[in-house]
């Protein structure tokens, strides 16, 4: 006996917004995963669009490598607008 694989569910709550991860569920195939997602995660009008992805297909970064992966971004202040000084009389840019 094989078990139904796990799927990750992403819901767009309304047009104009991105799909957001909202949870997971089990289903034997993609069609069922979509149907189940509709029944499990949109019972209260939470969505207008659903994505389902087999959980096994997700490649995730490893928190052990968080140092080299994310920390180098910390001192790149020049990517942020506040890095640049503007004359006081200029209110907006």
């Amino acid at each position, binding site marked *: *006996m*094989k*078990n139904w694989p*796990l799927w990750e569910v992403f819901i767009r709550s309304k047009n104009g917004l991105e799909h957001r991860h909202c949870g997971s569920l089990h289903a*034997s*195939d993609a069609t069922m995963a979509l149907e189940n997602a509709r029944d499990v995660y949109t*019972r209260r009008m939470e969505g207008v669009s659903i994505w389902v992805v087999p959980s096994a297909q997700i490649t995730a970064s490893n*928190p052990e490598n968080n140092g080299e992966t994310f920390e180098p971004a910390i001192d790149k202040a020049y990517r942020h607008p506040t890095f640049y000084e503007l004359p006081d009389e200029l209110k907006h840019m």
Partner: protein
Amino acid sequence: MSEKELKSLEDQFQARIDRDEKIEPKDWMPEKYRQTHIRQISQHAHSEIVGMLPEANWITRAPTLRRKLALLAKIQDEGGHGLYLYSAAETLGISREEMYDQLHSGKAKYSSIFNYPALTWADMGTIGWLVDGAAIMNQVALMGTSYGPYSRAMVRICKEESFHQRQGYSILLTMANGTPEQKAMVQDAMNRWWWPSLMMFGPKDADSPNTEQSVKWKLKRKTNDELRQQFVDQTVPQANILGITIPDDKLKWNEERKHYDFGEIDWDEFWQVVKGHGPCNKQRLEARKSAWEKGTWVRDAAVAYAEKQANKEVKQAI
């Protein structure tokens, strides 16, 4: 890893929790943290799905269409909540099937409250009011727990559960304003569910060995006794509005403590039910096992079908 290194990792881990950082599935965590969470989250999930049974018992007999729909929707939500929680536990490396096995073999526990029978329609009201009321108290506290997936499941669950308690209370309110027969039914349900509801918060703090560790991991934001007290304080005025008596002659407002004093729980009964000898333990477990076993051929068929379809697509691609 040396003992010293492990200790240092554990200290860093605890420091993260103390800083209110969330722990996510792939983060390093002490093995005991993982195991404790698997146990607690799966137990919580089992409680949701076993908890569907006493209420499901009344779907076909609900007295009005409106009540039938509300009850169905509520029980369905509980199924959903079980699902969210199983998913959260699965991020810790256990499958839903393994958790079911633990439930079916009696290794895993679920909330003892569901081992009491639902005998009248007033029980539907009382379960919603008292049982969901007690559960919500615990769950609201758990929204701030340290494990990310568990905390997120709690947020979603609390949002959805807000109608459950009202659904129950509204059933009782209608009956309490009804005929003497209906009022008696409400009182009878109260008499049977009050003490088991208080038992839902678990043993007294003095007899609850895991409390300290669980508090550190924010698996417990308040102790059993604190939550129980909070529940009593909150429930007494609601019972007064219904015009029913709480079956405890020691129940009394304590002006000094600013809390209600209440009588002693029958701890023998508590342990009897926890150990599997409550009125419905066997029946509930049988119902779960039977649903799972009778569903085997269905789940197998779906997998076989999916494999056939996938093979067809491969062939078409060639």
